[in-house]
């Protein structure tokens, strides 16, 4: 026994040591197999599978993909490793500007100057805003290049139960005034006008979407673009808190909040009971079960709500309405939720060329249609004007409503390459500075969260804490 132990012990020791040492090394990637890591969220994962299969069939390149809901925290390590395990990363909240500055991303100029499999110029397929947003001047080499491709264009606003509307003879509101009267009618019918969730994994920020749209209408898109630069009146970032002046540049956002306050904040009967503490599941269930007529949401509503109910189909027609306008004579506006979602290619990828080829494939008509079909509503950030979507729209009313929003409204984004945004988290800055949203607080205590009081707090907070944001952004 003792003799055997003498032989076995060193072997065990060697195994432990070699295991430990092997763990320290980095696996070499097999070239030629494209590897994608993508955020597993409201779009699901079926679209990746379909598009990857189609790409593999078209190009002959193998595609491997991994869904991960914590991708944002993993990208950094991959990009800075010797060999990234993944060639393409697809997610929201990727700090791509910072990665580009540090030379960690592949330059995608070839992609933008290239052609899709349909023979279209890639640049013609990309939405103008998306191309502009993806073009970034790196501090490292001082040159501007394309470093990302936007994933979705998206929409945000009110998702509604179309059958319930038909059943009660309610018209889809086109103005804020009509929305106000509609809510009164819905509440009279003992149905909850809005289901929303402020507790647990809070989604109170879904209210931001209609507010942004009202803000855009009141302020105009040019002003909004200037606002998102976050420079002060004197043109410096140091006084960027000027943008939160409720009597100045933030006046119209305050007005948008006032509209919300008058409609929802002072009418608890228009929301589910104690919405400020309600969980997302409960809000989703209220809508799914027909107890609530509307739910503020993003483009991923149908897929996500269905998934939360065990993937059971809705037993009614779901649609997203164009957000009712402030003025009847104005255009409709759509906040492109998810426009900040990115597809980036690791510079340390052994398959950069294949990755670029895949991104070009994503712009193809086939991929664009597949995405809408499999993600059940969301659209890629490419031009759909010459893609025949009639069959998908006829088959799925949610897709139809989304198509109408994207093609019949003024689409805009708040995404910005301002150093204040890229040096901090965007949700920490715009538009609710310090990530302090007041929807929940207002439901809990409306009298202390009137528009005047809230925006005084917002401005004071911005002014008092602005220096910290500038220090993070390394701007004076």
């Amino acid at each position, binding site marked *: 026994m003792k003799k055997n132990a003498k032989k076995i012990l060193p072997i*065990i020791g060697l195994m432990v040591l070699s295991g*430990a040492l092997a763990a*320290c090394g980095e696996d070499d990637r097999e070239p030629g197999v494209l590897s994608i890591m993508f955020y597993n969220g409201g779009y699901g994962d079926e679209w990746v599978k379909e598009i990857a299969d189609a790409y593999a069939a078209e190009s002959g390149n193998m595609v491997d993909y991994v869904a991960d809901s914590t991708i944002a925290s993993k990208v950094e390590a991959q990009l800075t490793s010797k060999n990234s395990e993944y060639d393409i990363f697809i997610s929201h909240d990727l700090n791509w500007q*910072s990665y580009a500055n540090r030379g960690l991303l592949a330059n995608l100029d070839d992609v933008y100057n290239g052609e899709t499999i349909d023979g279209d110029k890639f640049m013609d397929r990309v939405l103008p805003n998306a191309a502009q947003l993806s073009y970034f001047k790196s*501090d*490292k080499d001082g040159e501007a290049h394309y470093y990302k491709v936007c994933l979705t264009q998206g929409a945000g606003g009110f998702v509604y139960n179309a059958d319930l509307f038909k059943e009660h003879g309610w018209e889809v509101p086109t103005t804020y005034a009509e929305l106000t009267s509609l809510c009164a009618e819905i509440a009279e019918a003992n149905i909850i006008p809005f289901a929303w969730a402020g507790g647990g994994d809070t989604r109170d920020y879904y209210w931001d979407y209609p507010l942004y749209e009202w803000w855009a209408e009141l302020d105009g898109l040019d002003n909004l673009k200037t606002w998102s630069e976050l420079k002060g009146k004197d043109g410096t970032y140091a006084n960027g808190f000027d943008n939160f002046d409720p009597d100045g540049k933030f006046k119209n956002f305050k007005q948008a909040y006032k509209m919300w306050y008058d409609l929802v904040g002072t009418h608890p009967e228009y929301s589910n009971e104690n919405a400020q503490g309600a969980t997302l599941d409960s809000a989703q269930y209220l809508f799914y079960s027909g107890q609530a007529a509307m739910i503020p949401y993003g483009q991923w509503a149908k897929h996500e709500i269905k998934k939360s109910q065990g993937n059971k189909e809705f037993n009614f027609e779901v649609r997203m309405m164009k957000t009712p306008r402030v003025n009847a004579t104005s255009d409709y506006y759509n906040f492109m939720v998810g426009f900040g979602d990115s597809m980036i290619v690791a510079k340390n990828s052994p398959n950069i060329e294949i990755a670029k080829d895949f991104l070009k494939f994503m712009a193809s008509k086939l991929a664009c249609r597949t995405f809408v079909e499999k993600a059940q509503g969301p659209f890629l950030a490419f031009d759909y004007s010459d893609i025949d979507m009639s069959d998908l729209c006829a088959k799925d009313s949610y897709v139809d409503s989304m198509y109408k929003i994207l093609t019949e409204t003024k689409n805009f984004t708040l995404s910005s390459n301002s150093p204040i945004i890229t*040096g901090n988290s965007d949700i920490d800055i715009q538009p609710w500075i310090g990530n302090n949203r007041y929807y*929940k*607080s207002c439901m809990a205590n409306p009298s202390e969260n009137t528009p005047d009081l809230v925006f005084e707090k917002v401005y004071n*907070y911005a002014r008092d804490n602005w220096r910290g944001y500038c220090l993070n952004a390394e701007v004076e």
Partner: protein
Amino acid sequence: MSTAVVNNKRENKARRRFIKPTTIFIILMLLYPCLQFAIMWFGVNINSILLTFKDRYLEWLPIDSLFKNYVNVFEKMSIPATKQMYLNSLVYLVLNCFITLPVSLFFAYFIFKKIYMGGVFKVVYYLPSVLPTVILTLVYSSMFNTGGLLYPLFAKFGINTANFFVQGTGIEKWMVWIFCFWTGIGYDVMLLTAGMARIPNDLLESAKMDGVSPIKEFFHIIIPLTWPTITTLFIFGMMGVFGTYLQPMLLTGTIDSTKTIGLQIFNDSQGSALNNPATMGLVCTLIATPIVLGVRALLNHFFKEVNF
């Protein structure tokens, strides 16, 4: 030369030529933790230290502004939101060391004395320590939401408990503190009862025969003899100032009124400007280390360590 001497010389030669397998094993087993320390501790931490001398793009700072990140950390201390974050964090020192620990000490003593239903209390105290924080926060917040156990109870007094976790009500921070107190007790009680269980029975019986009351026993025998455990828990409690982040994050989200140093570092480290959280972490360590060591030395002076 005798045969025995010759054999002995041969053995010694053989020993010198071949290292014993057990020696190899011992070397390897010692090498593993050494490598582990070198790579996982030193390697990781040295990277964090180096990060403090880099800019937000993780490029080296110029030599004339090498300590810029440190200057920024101190400059940010004058910003209201940051001040509040530090104050929020310091509350956990008071909560963990001066509230949770003394209360745990009493509860641990009751369990140690095998009071009626002591076993049930043991489970009640221990349960929060063995369940994941995510589950506990969910259960805890659900109790106060519509449909929760406590919601109708408070509603009778006109109190809407669904507002308890909402920023601006002033109650949200109390809800986080109560949660930390509730879950912290189990951990402390578990370690303290283990410490008390080591006290020799003879000693307690002898004290009992001398007519020592339970209160005297608690203060003059139990506390001195479990002092090393109390000291350890006190130090752990102090570390809560820097380490508490999950509870406020899961209960109220990242809001100013409950944000802690740990939560700020956690949030910042999700981004790519890792120089900021690294510097804040290192500054906190530099400030905390002498304080923790000083407190430990001070606490060790109260009672002489007794071996039993």
